[in-house]
Protein backbone atom coordinates (compact mmCIF):
# COMPACT_ATOMS: atom_id res chain seq x y z
CA UNK A 1 0.00 0.00 0.00
CA UNK A 2 1.44 3.37 -0.91
CA UNK A 3 1.80 6.12 1.68
CA UNK A 4 -0.95 8.02 -0.09
CA UNK A 5 -3.24 5.02 0.19
CA UNK A 6 -2.40 4.68 3.89
CA UNK A 7 -3.26 8.31 4.50
CA UNK A 8 -6.52 8.08 2.57
CA UNK A 9 -7.54 4.96 4.48
CA UNK A 10 -6.67 6.52 7.79
CA UNK A 11 -8.51 9.72 6.98
CA UNK A 12 -11.53 7.82 5.69
CA UNK A 13 -11.64 5.76 8.89
CA UNK A 14 -11.36 8.75 11.19
CA UNK A 15 -13.65 10.81 8.99
CA UNK A 16 -16.45 8.27 8.97
CA UNK A 17 -16.16 7.70 12.73
CA UNK A 18 -16.41 11.44 13.29
CA UNK A 19 -19.28 11.85 10.83
CA UNK A 20 -21.18 8.95 12.34
CA UNK A 21 -20.99 10.48 15.78
CA UNK A 22 -21.32 14.14 14.89
CA UNK A 23 -24.06 13.94 12.29
CA UNK A 24 -26.07 11.15 13.87
CA UNK A 25 -29.89 11.45 13.97
CA UNK A 26 -31.30 12.91 17.22
CA UNK A 27 -32.04 9.52 18.75
CA UNK A 28 -28.48 8.22 18.58
CA UNK A 29 -26.51 11.35 19.45
CA UNK A 30 -23.92 11.22 22.24
CA UNK A 31 -24.48 13.47 25.29
CA UNK A 32 -24.22 17.30 25.17
CA UNK A 33 -20.63 18.27 26.10
CA UNK A 34 -19.20 15.40 24.10
CA UNK A 35 -21.06 16.57 21.04
CA UNK A 36 -19.90 20.13 21.50
CA UNK A 37 -16.27 19.05 21.53
CA UNK A 38 -16.74 16.61 18.69
CA UNK A 39 -17.94 18.95 15.99
CA UNK A 40 -14.91 21.26 15.77
CA UNK A 41 -12.47 18.42 16.50
CA UNK A 42 -11.04 18.13 12.98
CA UNK A 43 -10.18 21.82 12.92
CA UNK A 44 -8.63 21.61 16.40
CA UNK A 45 -6.50 18.69 15.31
CA UNK A 46 -5.36 20.53 12.21
CA UNK A 47 -4.34 23.56 14.23
CA UNK A 48 -2.61 21.36 16.80
CA UNK A 49 -0.66 19.66 14.04
CA UNK A 50 0.26 23.05 12.61
CA UNK A 51 1.62 24.17 15.97
CA UNK A 52 3.52 20.94 16.42
CA UNK A 53 5.07 21.35 12.98
CA UNK A 54 6.19 24.90 13.64
CA UNK A 55 7.60 23.99 17.03
CA UNK A 56 9.46 20.96 15.68
CA UNK A 57 10.97 22.73 12.70
CA UNK A 58 11.85 25.70 14.90
CA UNK A 59 13.55 23.47 17.44
CA UNK A 60 15.44 21.56 14.77
CA UNK A 61 16.49 24.80 13.13
CA UNK A 62 17.84 26.11 16.41
CA UNK A 63 19.76 22.92 17.14
CA UNK A 64 21.17 22.47 13.66
CA UNK A 65 24.84 21.88 14.36
CA UNK A 66 27.45 24.12 12.85
CA UNK A 67 30.68 22.24 12.53
CA UNK A 68 33.33 24.90 12.86
CA UNK A 69 36.15 22.45 13.55
CA UNK A 70 35.35 20.45 10.45
CA UNK A 71 35.66 23.54 8.32
CA UNK A 72 38.89 24.54 10.02
CA UNK A 73 40.25 21.04 9.49
CA UNK A 74 39.61 21.33 5.80
CA UNK A 75 41.37 24.64 5.45
CA UNK A 76 44.64 23.14 6.61
Amino acid at each position, binding site marked *: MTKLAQWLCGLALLGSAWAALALAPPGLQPPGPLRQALLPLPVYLLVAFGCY*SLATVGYRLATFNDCEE*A*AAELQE
Partner: protein
Amino acid sequence: SGIDFEIIIIDDGSPDGTQEVARQLEKIYGSDKILLRPRAKKLGLGTAYIHGMKYATGDFIVIMDADLSHHPKFIPEFIRKQKEGNFDIVSGTRYKGNGGVYGWDLKRKLISRGANFLTQVLLRPGASDLTGSFRLYRKEVLQKLMEKCVSKGYVFQMEMIVRARQLGFTVGEVPISFVDRVYGESKLGGNEIVSFLKGLLTLFATT
Protein backbone atom coordinates in the same frame (compact mmCIF):
# COMPACT_ATOMS: atom_id res chain seq x y z
CA SER B 1 44.22 0.83 7.95
CA GLY B 2 43.99 -2.79 6.88
CA ILE B 3 40.93 -2.24 4.75
CA ASP B 4 41.14 -3.24 1.13
CA PHE B 5 39.91 -0.44 -1.08
CA GLU B 6 39.87 1.09 -4.54
CA ILE B 7 38.76 4.55 -5.61
CA ILE B 8 36.69 5.01 -8.73
CA ILE B 9 36.68 8.56 -10.02
CA ILE B 10 34.02 9.58 -12.46
CA ASP B 11 34.44 12.94 -14.04
CA ASP B 12 32.20 14.35 -16.70
CA GLY B 13 34.70 16.79 -18.07
CA SER B 14 34.85 19.21 -15.15
CA PRO B 15 36.40 22.48 -16.27
CA ASP B 16 38.57 22.79 -13.16
CA GLY B 17 41.32 20.33 -14.01
CA THR B 18 39.94 17.42 -12.02
CA GLN B 19 41.06 14.81 -14.51
CA GLU B 20 44.65 16.08 -14.45
CA VAL B 21 44.81 15.73 -10.69
CA ALA B 22 43.19 12.31 -10.87
CA ARG B 23 45.75 11.13 -13.38
CA GLN B 24 48.55 12.27 -11.11
CA LEU B 25 46.99 10.38 -8.21
CA GLU B 26 46.80 7.34 -10.40
CA LYS B 27 50.54 7.58 -11.04
CA ILE B 28 51.29 7.88 -7.34
CA TYR B 29 49.02 5.17 -5.99
CA GLY B 30 48.78 2.81 -8.92
CA SER B 31 45.91 2.07 -11.23
CA ASP B 32 44.70 -0.85 -9.14
CA LYS B 33 43.90 1.59 -6.35
CA ILE B 34 42.79 4.61 -8.37
CA LEU B 35 40.46 3.93 -11.25
CA LEU B 36 39.87 6.94 -13.40
CA ARG B 37 36.77 6.41 -15.53
CA PRO B 38 35.88 9.71 -17.17
CA ARG B 39 32.90 10.35 -19.38
CA ALA B 40 32.58 12.51 -22.44
CA LYS B 41 30.05 14.94 -21.07
CA LYS B 42 27.87 15.77 -18.12
CA LEU B 43 25.45 12.87 -17.85
CA GLY B 44 24.02 13.06 -14.37
CA LEU B 45 24.43 11.40 -11.01
CA GLY B 46 22.33 8.27 -11.49
CA THR B 47 24.17 7.18 -14.60
CA ALA B 48 27.47 8.01 -12.88
CA TYR B 49 26.57 5.47 -10.19
CA ILE B 50 25.75 2.83 -12.79
CA HIS B 51 28.90 3.63 -14.76
CA GLY B 52 31.08 3.42 -11.67
CA MET B 53 29.54 0.18 -10.44
CA LYS B 54 30.59 -1.62 -13.58
CA TYR B 55 34.21 -1.26 -12.48
CA ALA B 56 33.73 -1.91 -8.78
CA THR B 57 35.24 -5.14 -7.58
CA GLY B 58 34.59 -4.91 -3.83
CA ASP B 59 31.69 -5.99 -1.63
CA PHE B 60 30.72 -2.50 -0.49
CA ILE B 61 30.51 0.80 -2.25
CA VAL B 62 30.84 4.20 -0.62
CA ILE B 63 29.34 7.03 -2.58
CA MET B 64 30.47 10.53 -1.80
CA ASP B 65 31.10 13.99 -3.20
CA ALA B 66 34.64 14.53 -4.32
CA ASP B 67 34.92 18.19 -3.44
CA LEU B 68 35.64 17.57 0.24
CA SER B 69 32.11 18.52 1.33
CA HIS B 70 32.17 14.87 2.37
CA HIS B 71 35.24 14.16 4.48
CA PRO B 72 36.83 10.74 4.01
CA LYS B 73 37.57 10.55 7.74
CA PHE B 74 34.00 9.33 8.17
CA ILE B 75 34.52 6.26 6.03
CA PRO B 76 35.92 4.11 8.87
CA GLU B 77 32.86 5.22 10.89
CA PHE B 78 30.59 3.96 8.13
CA ILE B 79 32.44 0.66 8.00
CA ARG B 80 32.30 0.26 11.76
CA LYS B 81 28.57 0.99 11.79
CA GLN B 82 27.92 -1.47 8.99
CA LYS B 83 29.69 -4.24 10.86
CA GLU B 84 27.89 -3.32 14.09
CA GLY B 85 24.43 -3.99 12.70
CA ASN B 86 25.20 -5.84 9.50
CA PHE B 87 23.39 -3.06 7.68
CA ASP B 88 22.73 -3.10 3.97
CA ILE B 89 23.10 0.66 3.80
CA VAL B 90 24.77 3.16 6.09
CA SER B 91 23.59 6.70 5.54
CA GLY B 92 25.48 9.80 6.61
CA THR B 93 23.16 12.16 8.43
CA ARG B 94 23.60 15.88 8.99
CA TYR B 95 20.64 16.07 11.33
CA LYS B 96 21.45 13.72 14.20
CA GLY B 97 24.12 13.24 16.81
CA ASN B 98 27.01 15.56 16.14
CA GLY B 99 26.31 15.68 12.46
CA GLY B 100 26.03 19.15 11.05
CA VAL B 101 26.83 21.67 8.39
CA TYR B 102 29.11 24.62 7.93
CA GLY B 103 28.64 27.73 5.90
CA TRP B 104 24.85 27.59 5.77
CA ASP B 105 22.82 30.69 6.42
CA LEU B 106 19.56 30.63 8.35
CA LYS B 107 17.44 30.52 5.21
CA ARG B 108 19.18 27.44 3.86
CA LYS B 109 18.96 25.68 7.23
CA LEU B 110 15.28 26.51 7.48
CA ILE B 111 14.53 25.16 4.02
CA SER B 112 16.55 22.05 4.79
CA ARG B 113 14.79 21.36 8.09
CA GLY B 114 11.39 22.24 6.67
CA ALA B 115 11.80 19.97 3.68
CA ASN B 116 13.09 17.16 5.88
CA PHE B 117 10.15 17.54 8.26
CA LEU B 118 7.69 17.33 5.40
CA THR B 119 9.48 14.26 4.11
CA GLN B 120 9.38 12.59 7.53
CA VAL B 121 5.66 13.24 7.90
CA LEU B 122 4.72 12.05 4.44
CA LEU B 123 7.10 9.17 3.94
CA ARG B 124 8.03 8.02 7.48
CA PRO B 125 11.25 6.68 6.03
CA GLY B 126 13.05 5.54 9.18
CA ALA B 127 16.12 7.59 8.32
CA SER B 128 16.79 11.13 9.42
CA ASP B 129 18.60 12.51 6.38
CA LEU B 130 17.15 11.54 3.03
CA THR B 131 18.74 14.02 0.70
CA GLY B 132 22.29 13.36 1.78
CA SER B 133 24.54 11.55 -0.68
CA PHE B 134 27.32 10.27 1.56
CA ARG B 135 26.46 6.61 1.94
CA LEU B 136 27.83 3.11 2.15
CA TYR B 137 25.98 0.42 0.21
CA ARG B 138 26.38 -3.31 -0.05
CA LYS B 139 27.21 -3.78 -3.70
CA GLU B 140 24.24 -6.03 -4.56
CA VAL B 141 21.91 -3.67 -2.73
CA LEU B 142 23.12 -0.68 -4.73
CA GLN B 143 22.68 -2.62 -7.95
CA LYS B 144 19.14 -3.64 -7.02
CA LEU B 145 18.23 -0.09 -6.05
CA MET B 146 19.64 1.42 -9.23
CA GLU B 147 17.35 -0.84 -11.23
CA LYS B 148 14.32 0.38 -9.33
CA CYS B 149 14.91 4.09 -8.94
CA VAL B 150 13.59 6.47 -11.52
CA SER B 151 13.95 10.01 -10.21
CA LYS B 152 16.72 12.58 -10.47
CA GLY B 153 18.63 14.97 -8.24
CA TYR B 154 17.69 15.28 -4.57
CA VAL B 155 14.68 13.09 -5.07
CA PHE B 156 16.88 10.29 -6.41
CA GLN B 157 18.73 10.16 -3.07
CA MET B 158 15.41 10.06 -1.25
CA GLU B 159 14.05 7.37 -3.51
CA MET B 160 17.06 5.15 -2.83
CA ILE B 161 16.33 5.05 0.88
CA VAL B 162 12.57 4.71 0.46
CA ARG B 163 12.90 1.82 -2.00
CA ALA B 164 15.52 0.21 0.23
CA ARG B 165 13.01 0.15 3.08
CA GLN B 166 10.37 -1.19 0.74
CA LEU B 167 12.62 -4.06 -0.27
CA GLY B 168 13.37 -4.85 3.34
CA PHE B 169 16.97 -3.63 3.41
CA THR B 170 18.34 -2.33 6.68
CA VAL B 171 19.64 1.22 7.03
CA GLY B 172 22.05 2.43 9.70
CA GLU B 173 23.09 6.02 10.31
CA VAL B 174 26.31 7.84 11.07
CA PRO B 175 26.46 11.57 11.88
CA ILE B 176 28.59 13.43 9.36
CA SER B 177 29.61 17.01 8.85
CA PHE B 178 28.87 18.58 5.50
CA VAL B 179 31.14 21.47 4.73
CA ASP B 180 29.93 23.44 1.77
CA ARG B 181 32.33 23.53 -1.14
CA VAL B 182 34.86 26.20 -0.40
CA TYR B 183 34.38 27.93 -3.72
CA GLY B 184 31.19 28.49 -5.65
CA GLU B 185 27.61 29.35 -4.82
CA SER B 186 24.89 26.99 -3.76
CA LYS B 187 21.96 26.84 -6.09
CA LEU B 188 18.99 26.26 -3.82
CA GLY B 189 16.52 28.40 -5.75
CA GLY B 190 12.80 28.30 -6.38
CA ASN B 191 13.16 25.76 -9.17
CA GLU B 192 14.93 23.29 -6.94
CA ILE B 193 12.25 23.63 -4.28
CA VAL B 194 9.48 23.04 -6.79
CA SER B 195 11.10 19.96 -8.25
CA PHE B 196 11.78 18.66 -4.74
CA LEU B 197 8.10 19.02 -3.86
CA LYS B 198 7.03 17.34 -7.07
CA GLY B 199 9.43 14.50 -6.41
CA LEU B 200 8.27 14.16 -2.80
CA LEU B 201 4.63 13.98 -3.83
CA THR B 202 5.47 11.43 -6.50
CA LEU B 203 7.20 9.24 -3.94
CA PHE B 204 4.29 9.76 -1.57
CA ALA B 205 1.84 8.56 -4.18
CA THR B 206 3.86 5.70 -5.60
CA THR B 207 5.67 4.02 -2.72
